């Protein structure tokens, strides 16, 4: 059993949902992005998702795209993700990478998997890779004991839910709103139907992303999902402040609010 699955099992046994926090490496700098990820863990994030900036992030909204563009413009490279993972994994939080496929392909799929495993990473979320096109990645992930996390959406057919649940390990990433990442005013009931349908299709753990930004939303979603993935709302804490210390303070407050939410204390 992977460290990620064990952690999700453990959290489920506590009768709550996991809080999974996303931040891109390299925003505002590689060093400060690592500090921000460590801060998230201190403030109550259970699992960290380290984003690898990509030039064409079609499944991310404007907040994350702007941060990714900034990171790339300031020289963030693919190998920067590994020390970030290593530092975050050292906090004890299971650490996964979210990466679009082409940077992994160019780096070498197996080489990427090996470096990630050596850094202490536990898996990769691949937003633009489908299980049927993912043989090379799945093979490498198996070889290096990494979890492979694929996405489902409310538009996914029952066949696709089955296919994705079967191919995924750790958890299945349910994109709760049709659309791209970004904080939304309401999370919608399509999300609950999607989580239930994905579980019915065979997934043990289903974590919900895209749209959660407040403790109240987290509390609502925590009633039916195994984990809540928050990205844009956390990145916004950093973009809203020109000083990194102010940004980290805002991040700490936001994570604490969300962490209370997943425990039903919104």
């Amino acid at each position, binding site marked *: 059993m992977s460290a990620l699955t064990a952690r999700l099992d453990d959290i489920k046994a506590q009768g709550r949902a996991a809080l999974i926090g996303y931040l891109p490496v390299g925003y505002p700098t590689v060093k400060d992005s690592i500090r921000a990820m460590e801060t998230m863990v201190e403030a109550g994030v259970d699992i960290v998702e380290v984003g690898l900036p990509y030039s064409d992030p079609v499944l991310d909204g404007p907040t994350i795209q702007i941060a990714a563009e900034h990171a*790339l413009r300031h020289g963030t490279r693919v190998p920067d993700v590994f020390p970030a993972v290593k530092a975050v994994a050292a906090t004890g939080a299971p650490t996964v990478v979210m990466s679009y496929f*082409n940077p992994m392909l160019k780096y070498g799929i197996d080489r990427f998997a090996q470096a990630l495993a050596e850094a202490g990473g536990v898996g990769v979320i691949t937003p633009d890779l489908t299980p049927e096109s993912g043989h090379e990645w799945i093979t490498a992930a198996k070889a290096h004991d990494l979890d492979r996390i694929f996405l489902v959406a409310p538009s996914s057919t029952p066949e696709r839910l089955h296919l994705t649940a079967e191919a995924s390990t750790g958890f299945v990433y349910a994109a709760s709103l*049709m659309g791209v990442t970004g904080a939304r005013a309401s999370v919608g009931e399509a999300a609950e139907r999607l989580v239930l349908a994905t579980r019915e299709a065979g997934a043990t753990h289903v974590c919900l992303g895209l749209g959660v930004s407040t403790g109240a939303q987290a509390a609502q979603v925590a009633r039916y999902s195994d984990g809540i993935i928050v990205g844009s709302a956390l990145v916004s804490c950093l973009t809203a402040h020109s000083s990194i210390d102010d940004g980290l303070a805002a991040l700490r407050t936001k994570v604490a609010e969300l962490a209370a939410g997943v425990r039903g204390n919104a």
Partner: protein
Amino acid sequence: MAALDELTDAYDKARADPEFFAALERLGREYSGRPSIMTEVPRFAQHAGGARVFLKREDLNHTGSHKINNVLGQALLTKRIGKTRVIAETGAGQHGVATATAAALMDLECVVYMGEEDTQRQALNVARMRLLGATVVPVTTGSRTLRDAINEAYRDWVANVDTTNYVFGTAAGPHPFPAMVRDFQRVIGLESREQMLALGGLPDVVLACVGGGSNAIGMFDAFLDDVDVRLIGCEAAGDGVSTGRHAASIQGGSPGVLHGSRSYVLQNDDGQTIESHSISAGLDYPGVGPQHAWLSDMGRAEYWPISDAEAMEAFRLLCRKEGIMPAIETAHALAGAMRAGQELGPDATLLVNLSGRGDKDVATAAAYFDLLPEEAQ
């Protein structure tokens, strides 16, 4: 994925339905003016080594380019699956104009994403789309060109898939687009082959410009089994492939995945997409359709880099010698024909897909040739 699965399924059913292609053929004949004619251009040919040069006149189609062939097919498909809204990306604006046109014809809501830089380069086409009732959304992210317009269109599609079909403009992107766009553009090659046979025989060389590659694949497809016919795709080399400022994905890129297809991509060592450069907005794309990558790898087609300067010289010559103003995209294929003709000499017969007309490029070309009055500069 659901949207792509649904579209693949709908297209497979449509493809098996003779009525679908009959309706498309009728639209081609009665709406866009098919078949397009074949024009021999002897005065231009003097600059192509004296070879015989024939132009397939897709520029004479309604809306001024080959783009209408594909758009009518995808708009018919949209009606067939009961969606009420279409979105499109556009670079030069030709695909956007064609989509806006088909949307007006078939009573569909239409939103076109266009890089902000392109809305400035192609202001006339922005106005055309708006006159046709479309909403044009300038895209301000990234390089503010075609690739960013595609990113935004994808985001719209994912968010609005219940009502919306994505009318994709080129033979790239995820399945089923490369196959579907080729099928809708095949008419170019099929007509050309017949026309050339009626004129005395198959050409020695067939040329077309390649950005994503839709007009080229539509032209090449009918000639793939004619092993004696050389197929040459002309990529935009901008300032020259060696300068790094170009859009020649096959000649100057490497294998990668962009926008859902595995092909040649302009990318750095990290797999980050590099900005492309070309005087032609329609070729200014850092990827290329996967069929072209395959034709190149198997050696069936050649891909030549054509610089901005070579393309503009061919543009000027076709205007001056034949009274035909090509799109700057198309001028890359004409420059390729000049090079091929000089290499092969007067016995050769060259067929060029004249994929679009140059009205939209008047401002760019006038500035390039320094023809604008001072106060307009």
